């Protein structure tokens, strides 16, 4: 039970971290934002590992913005009420 609770906390914090990162100040600097990706030639753009990571990060950000608010509120209430 201790492991499952901790895993939930760890995953929530990691997804929070992915959602919080500033798009133009940080991600563009380390070239992990969709705007700073120029396809080199032809086919290697769609299937390279970097492109996949960029897509993954941007999709996690757009999908999990709202549910993360809900989950964070729930965890905060849980911690406040039940210690």
């Amino acid at each position, binding site marked *: 039970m*201790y*492991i*499952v609770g901790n*895993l939930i906390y760890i995953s929530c914090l990691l997804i929070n971290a992915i959602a919080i990162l500033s798009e133009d100040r940080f991600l563009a600097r380390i070239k992990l934002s969709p705007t700073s990706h120029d396809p080199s030639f032809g086919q290697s753009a769609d*299937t390279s590992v970097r492109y*996949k*990571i960029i897509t*993954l990060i941007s999709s996690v950000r757009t999908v999990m913005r709202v549910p993360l608010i809900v989950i964070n509120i729930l965890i905060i209430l849980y911690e406040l009420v039940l210690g």
Partner: protein
Amino acid sequence: MQRPSYGQSPPLHHPVPQHVSTVPQLRSPPPPTSQPHSQGYDGSPYQQQQPRVASGGGNMFGQYGNMINDPAAQLASQFGQTAFKQGQEYLEQNVSRFISVSSLKHYFNVTNFYVINKLYLVLFPWRHKPWSRKQAVGPNGQEGWYLPPRDDINSPDMYIPVMSFVTYIFLQTLIAGLRGNFQPELFGYIATTALVVVIVEILGLKLGCYLLSISNESQLLDLVAYSGYKFVGVIVTISVAEIANAGKGTGGWIGWTVFFYTFLANSLFLMRSLKYVLLPENNSDNRAPMQTMQTESRAKRNQRTQFLFFYSYVVQLFFMWILSRP
């Protein structure tokens, strides 16, 4: 299902029940004044004609003997039977929407021969030669589905992983009990730990497949089965370490030697088996621009091989270590 063999029994022609129901058969056993035919009792295959069977088989139904004569109780039992049948149908309808039972059956279609040889393979995979799974050929000569584990030693099954998972839980709690730290919550704790290990491993594998654009044609249950084979090595490690160390866990020479041996065996087994799952074959690449395709796919193939190696060795080492902690 014991059929007591009484000496002279005339041949019985009652139909063999196709579906073993757990509801007690409420047909009345033949009364001690034996009747000349027993073919009307299709629900009670244990009843034979002899008078003394009534006492032998009647001890199972003896308590019902008084109930059968009471029509209210008979009604209640019939109602219970129909309710049970309806509950079963409801369960079948709803569960089959989530878990496809027929594809699960394919994984449990094993024989003794398969189980023993597969266990031997997991623990000693170095001499085995062909690792590819056999495919059944359809009626037109086109390739169909993979053969079930009954016919193909290389096919993954779910019987060994499930059994070794349960055995692992019991073994850990037994050892904890021998050491004096048994609590009833330990069952749930160990089960949760092992399940979390499997789930995290599969998630990592799926993430790696997505990042490397590996199109995964094999089903999820195949990966779960491959991930469950490590429990066999962990069980061997724990039991040998427990016997050799007399209660100190996987400390000392013998424990770590067995651990590394089973880890290496499991990793080789995984690498050889997952090669056909994760690495695409050469012929399936499209042929339009040959040069760039080949160089690029060589780099990608290297990436995939490295990923497979990383997954088989490093990841498995980490998880097997977690599982074999006391």
